[in-house]
């Protein structure tokens, strides 16, 4: 049984309400931080914890906080990125819906560390009902003196505002989020300058994921060093994984990063194995934009080691044989799934969500979608596969924001690992319309070269 730090109380009835949350030990971290610690000490504690950003990139949070420019007389802002739009990722929704005070508490503590008197929650427009939950939680916190002027007599003021997005995946990119928050079109900004120097209204800003900010609460409560003891290596603490697809038990799981991927999929504590007695074919371990892996490479790395649910192990082997932890959207595909169709679905998503600002992403995503649709419909040509490879290569790294990469990686990984399925789709076009390629060799043990 893994340690739970974020969701351990989520099942308690009415934990959504302040009184219950407070009774269960809520807002202790605010009291501890504001009464006994200096802002820098809070940042130091987060640094010690080794907490890494939970939004996808996995950048160390403490380091990000210490990069924040602190010029005199200029306000600083904390912005919480709740624009969780990655297909397959729904962990923040769970957290905000069931235990909203954890986020509010984390935001107050983090704001104190950053010296931010105004914090924003930018939430995706589709989470309309959660806005009400959050605003109620903010009101309750305010009524009980945890928000507003002079919190707990410490002289620290803090206000939290919730802003709804209007339904754009791109607004989850931090600079597009800031543009949108300022009331403009959600186009990503060109970096540098980074938000830590020039963010919201040209002021220094920290943008963090919901889960990252929530994780500050146990870090302050237990101490950074205690938090860092959980997990393996640089993957410290617990991570929320939203598991979906062809597994028996879909849902949000909190894992301490010590378990293997195999255990996560097959143990009854977590996903409970593949549904309907089918076999595991492929998996996207970190949300739709990270590379897809076939079953054999998912469970063991190219070196033959067991793949663990950690940032390092999931990325082991680079993009050639590895993937990424990403935002923790764990999508499992069984042997009835078609990788071509799946890749097409993702390409369609990225085409729809590209902001259209820079040309490789705007034009390339649409082109890839059309080619993939042709292959899926049995109208593909052999040369299309290499063409797809060339298009994704020319998008990747040449765009303003990571959406270009996010659109290119799934296509690249699908071709890299499932090229024969694509070829089968083209050579057996008629048959491909009637049945799927199936599992084939994707779960076979991989050949591991022995070194002397």
């Amino acid at each position: 049984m893994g340690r739970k730090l974020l969701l351990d109380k989520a099942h308690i009835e009415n934990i959504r309400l302040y009184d219950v949350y407070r009774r269960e030990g809520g807002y202790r971290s605010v009291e501890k931080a504001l009464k006994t610690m200096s802002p820098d000490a809070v940042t130091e504690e987060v640094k010690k914890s080794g907490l890494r950003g939970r939004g996808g990139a996995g950048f160390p949070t403490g380091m990000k906080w210490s990069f924040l420019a602190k010029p005199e007389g200029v306000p600083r802002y904390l912005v919480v990125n709740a624009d969780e739009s990655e297909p397959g990722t729904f962990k923040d929704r769970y957290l905000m819906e069931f235990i909203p005070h954890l986020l509010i508490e984390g935001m107050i503590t983090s704001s104190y560390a950053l010296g931010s008197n105004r914090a924003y929650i930018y939430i995706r427009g589709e989470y309309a009902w959660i806005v009400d939950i959050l605003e109620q939680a903010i009101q309750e916190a305010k009524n009980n003196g945890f928000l507003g002027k002079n919190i707990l007599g410490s002289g620290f003021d803090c206000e939290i505002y919730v802003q709804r997005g209007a339904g754009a995946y791109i607004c989850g990119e931090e600079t597009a989020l800031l543009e949108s928050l300022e009331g403009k079109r959600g186009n990503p900004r060109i970096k540098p300058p980074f938000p830590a120097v020039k963010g919201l209204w040209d002021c220094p800003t920290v943008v963090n994921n919901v889960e990252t900010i929530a994780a500050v609460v146990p870090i302050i409560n237990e101490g950074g060093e205690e938090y860092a003891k959980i997990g393996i290596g640089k993957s410290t603490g617990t991570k929320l994984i939203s598991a979906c697809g062809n597994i028996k038990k879909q849902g949000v799981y909190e894992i301490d990063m010590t378990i293997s991927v195999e255990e996560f999929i097959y143990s009854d504590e977590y996903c409970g194995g593949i549904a309907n007695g089918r076999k595991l074919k492929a998996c996207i371990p970190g949300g739709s934009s990270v590379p897809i892996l076939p079953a054999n490479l998912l469970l063991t790395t190219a070196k033959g080691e067991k793949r663990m649910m950690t940032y390092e192990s999931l990325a082991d082997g680079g993009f050639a044989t590895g993937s990424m932890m990403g935002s923790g959207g764990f999508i499992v595909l069984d042997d009835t799934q078609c990788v071509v169709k799946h890749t097409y679905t993702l390409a369609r998503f990225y085409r729809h969500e590209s902001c259209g600002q820079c040309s490789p992403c705007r034009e390339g995503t649409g082109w890839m979608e059309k080619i993939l649709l042709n292959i899926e419909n049995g109208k593909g040509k052999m040369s299309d596969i290499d063409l797809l490879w060339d298009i994704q290569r020319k998008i990747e790294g040449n765009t303003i924001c990571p959406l270009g990469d996010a659109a290119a990686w799934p296509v690249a990984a699908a071709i890299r690992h499932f090229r024969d399925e694509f070829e089968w789709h083209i050579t057996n076009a008629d048959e491909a319309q009637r049945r799927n390629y199936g599992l084939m060799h994707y779960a076979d043990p991989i050949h591991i070269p022995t070194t002397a």
Partner: protein
Amino acid sequence: MADEVKKEPPANFKVTIDNITIEVAPGTSILTAARQIGGDVTPPAMCFYSKLKGSGGKCRTCLVEVAAGSTADPRPMPKLVASCRTNVMDGMIVKNITSERVQDARAGVVEFLLLNHPLDCPICDQAGECHLQDLGYEHGKEGTRYEFKRRTFEKEDIGPYIQLHMTRCILCYRCTYVADQLTDNRVHGILERGDHAEISTYISKAIDNDFSGNMIDVCPVGALTDKTFRFKNRVWFTKPVDAHRDCENEKCCGKVTLWQRGDDVLRVTSRKDEWGEVQSYDGKPGWICNTCRFDKKKANDWVIEGPTSISRHSVISQGHYVGLQKPKETIAEVMGGREPKLLMDIHSISDVNSVEIASLPGPATSKTFEKSE
């Protein structure tokens, strides 16, 4: 503390672009530095416009490789960077045409830009002065690998002077910056997103502003064209001359290029520099007002300064109008001073030559020449 110890920063930064070293002021972008060197070293730019704040970074044609960040930190930058929005550092080493990665990426970008662009150059008014044509000519391939229907848009009326042809647009955003920075009542911007994003106005409102015509000048392609010039002539058949007038509008610089056919003024534009941007006078961009651009279509509205110098690489220079001498009328000389006797004065019979093409609101059709009784 480190700041106190540090000496005065060097007045100029040394930057090496394709093995050519140049000294530029701090805060200069790589592209601007490359433009100071000039020639092949300068990356092409479709969206960057030095006179429009915030422009650039979008088209990705100006991507370059930074082989060394600076003397202090000589690490190379992992990704190609947009040279228009990346400032030089002292000791920076940039590779443009000497980098295969850049050439490869740029070819990709050109292919992307041309993917949905209608190749309707034969009927496009921008042809001959189109930056996308130049870019395709220099960096593009002969064929396309795109086998699908190109994206099209419904035509939209945005007012009496400017024709929006969204299908040709490459979404450089320059015109939106003009709307933001030059005109005081912004009604136009970008709708939708991704490959279905389009330039549009607020609920099909007409763009009505004294300086809106500058959108036509900044548009790198034929998406925004001058309605008073549409289909009247190919630009390479017209003769550009520099001219000026005292404009009542104090924000207007009054310095323009007239595009003439004979003595008719077919089109008025602002003057362009060698990068295709509006020329600056005393550090101020020479934007012109709509009165100068659309209403002053008579040669005697203007003080003509002389022929515009056009790069010899441009198709417009094929007219060889500079230094051209018209043949003299020699009949009178040959005939000892006597005028020739005309059998019939065609001008008194036909109305064709009495039609002033330049003052027509649109293209001339056969109806234009019908005799009006």
